[in-house]
């Protein structure tokens, strides 16, 4: 017998390049206190903690979760840190979900912080994730590898850089309603096209910012939901997959996890959506909060999760299908990762923004009538993919 898992409280700080007014541990505490306040809980109401922290190389304190332990009220509690690169926040939510669903704990707080701007150039750190014998000297980085991905996708499906730019325009417009977003504004396709080329075809505006801040989410079982929430969001599906490290192995005709169309997303999506009894994503899901640090990653997730056919998402973008107002599905009403990317907690923030829509706590970003929302996270050059499906009532399992 497994337990129903509900979201009871959430919190995120405003995100910007630096938070000079707080240390890393204090940032984590802000999020922990915020989520407990949101749920009406005290530290004693939290049974266990999952710390969401990606590479600590960015900020220079190894395993900084240990330093933060007292700040997030973890002393004496079961605490564990999860780290799957960019997918960390989503994996952390899944781990918290496991702790509740298994019946081991009544309530779990997922909390983390990011301070990526402590390093002058994150891309130099991210170069170190690649193989030291073959790939580092090329030099591969997240920008250059996603540029390869974008080039192939545009060529394969006949789209242009302007189609990529249209995603940025929508994302920054959405972010205008998000008080925590790092980048926001009414930018035009022409302005995106005129931004500096970073790695063809990715220009500066096609790429997420380096964001700092913190976030937390509190999960609970049904008993805790009855005590602490009048309108919880329920986690009805959660899944992850890991594919091969080697990009070349994902580009061969016989590969079973194709890189450019990112088939790993389809596998995860099918599993998580099936668990949540979602058979028609376009008509059953009202909000997505995708992990999309590059403008190429939004259409691919829409296609692979079954919102539209492969190679059509950019065309539908032109027709306004993914707009918050008047669209078929509100895609990233928060502005998504293109506007805010605090790597350690980005997947967690995606989950928070999706859950808040169910809980009617999304403020000015609120989309009316949300019954199901999906969030995702991506790590390790799309090597790790995670998907969580939230609903307004327990469905599926």
């Amino acid at each position, binding site marked *: 017998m497994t337990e129903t898992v509900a979201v009871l409280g959430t919190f995120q700080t405003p995100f910007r390049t630096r938070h000079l007014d707080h240390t890393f541990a204090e940032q984590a505490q802000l999020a922990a206190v915020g989520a407990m306040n949101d749920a009406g809980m005290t530290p004693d109401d939290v049974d266990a903690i999952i710390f969401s922290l990606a590479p600590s190389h960015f900020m220079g304190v190894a*395993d900084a979760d240990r330093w933060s*332990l007292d700040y997030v009220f973890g*002393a*004496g509690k079961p605490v564990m840190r*999860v*780290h799957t690169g960019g997918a960390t926040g989503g994996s952390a939510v899944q781990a918290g979900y*496991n702790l509740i669903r*298994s019946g081991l704990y009544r309530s779990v707080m997922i909390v983390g912080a990011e301070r990526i701007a402590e390093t002058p150039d994150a891309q130099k750190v991210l170069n170190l*994730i690649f193989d030291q014998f073959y790939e580092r000297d090329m030099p591969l980085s997240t920008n250059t590898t996603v540029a390869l991905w974008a080039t192939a996708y545009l060529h394969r499906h006949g789209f242009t850089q302007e189609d990529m730019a249209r995603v940025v325009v929508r994302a920054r417009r959405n972010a205008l309603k998000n008080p925590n977003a790092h980048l926001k504004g009414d930018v035009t396709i022409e302005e995106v096209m005129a931004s500096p080329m970073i790695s063809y075809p990715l220009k500066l505006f096609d790429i997420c910012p380096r964001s700092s801040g913190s976030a937390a989410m509190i999960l609970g079982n049904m008993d805790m939901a009855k005590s602490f929430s009048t309108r919880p969001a329920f986690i009805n599906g959660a899944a992850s997959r890991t594919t091969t490290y080697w990009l070349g192995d994902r580009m061969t005709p016989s590969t079973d996890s194709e890189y450019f169309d990112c088939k790993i997303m389809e596998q995860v999506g099918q599993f998580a959506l099936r668990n949540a009894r979602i058979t028609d994503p376009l008509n059953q899901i009202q909000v997505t909060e995708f992990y999309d640090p590059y403008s190429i990653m939004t259409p691919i997730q829409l296609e692979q999760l079954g919102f539209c056919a492969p190679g059509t998402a950019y065309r539908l973008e032109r027709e306004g299908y993914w707009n918050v107002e008047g669209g078929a599905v509100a895609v990233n009403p928060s502005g998504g990762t293109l506007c805010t990317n605090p790597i350690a907690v980005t997947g967690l923030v995606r989950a928070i923004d999706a859950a808040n829509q169910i809980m009617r706590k999304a403020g000015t970003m609120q989309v009316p009538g949300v019954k199901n929302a999906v969030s995702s996270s991506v790590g390790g050059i799309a090597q790790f993919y995670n998907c969580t499906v939230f609903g307004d009532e327990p469905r599926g399992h």
Partner: protein
Amino acid sequence: MNIYVLGVALHPAVGNERTMRLEEMAYHTARSALDHAGISRKQLDSLTIGACDELDGRPISSMLMSAPAGAYNIDEIKVTDSGASALCLAYARFLSGESELGMVVSWCKSSKTNPESVMLLRGDPFYTRPLGVGTAVSDALFAQAVGEEYGVTEQEVNERVVSAFRKAAGNERGMRHPVPDEASLVASPLDATPLRAAQRAPYTDGAAALVLATDTFLDANPECHPLARLSGVGWASDSYRLEAKRLRAMNSARAAWQTALSRAGLKDADDLDVIELDSQTGYHEAAYVRAFGIKKQDAVSPSGGPFAQNPYFCTGLVNAVEAVLQVSNQAGAVQRDGVRRAAAHGCHGCAQQGNVVMVFEAAQRGGQ
């Protein structure tokens, strides 16, 4: 739901693995565990990794390491606290219905990345790091604290260290270090008062893997025979501060111990036949024996614990493998008679900020 161990493997103990890269160590260990379980990699539906970027020497080390460890197109997650912590999350993943057949893998090439340097980098940049508090100093603070709390003498510590080395010498899966005499321990240099160099378990390179399965999998695969049942786990963390009150209280160790025993339906240490402790020094063994209320001294670490092999990050998971081997009567020269239940302990962080306890029982399934 019951969770069983189908297969286990350890990398052969070695002080400095020069013939294999880290990913090769993980691959061979995972492969051996799968073979021990009699299953193929394609049957796995989950992998839980215990690994530390800083000790592995690269950011997001699971990018490179996940496939050698067995993750290809399956649900994989990485825990960074310790190998034993990964087993705890795997336990939750199974109980939540997420997995029916999975593996837990952890590794540490201590010779490649100096653990002391990593521990120094764990210091917060304002107070701890400028003081140079790493493994040696924090373990020494712990030794001072428990020495005063429990009246642990240096003579007892030395007796425990010699005993641990002697047990380890009989363990074919260990390093078989020479057994020192007490005089040589006393003569060894002080690393940090009161801790002497020879009272500390030497670091080694290693890896450990366990294949886990549910009743559902075993019902569908009657050809697979479990070695043990994972009957309970517990984990907890202490404050980051290295104050005497925290070090003396050993709260996280006690909480992990009590939680694991409670989940296993056990009352106290007398219900266990073997207890494999992660005793990084003789002081640690003296402290844990008292904190856990262990009266049967011959039940303590028949493998020799970290004094047999000590791949720092995954020593707790090595202890788990040793515990499984004991309850399945496969522990070889260090096998104890009639072992029905065994606990394995792991700790992590400066002065054991975190503790993990895992309880295994002899498999009682289908008449086996």
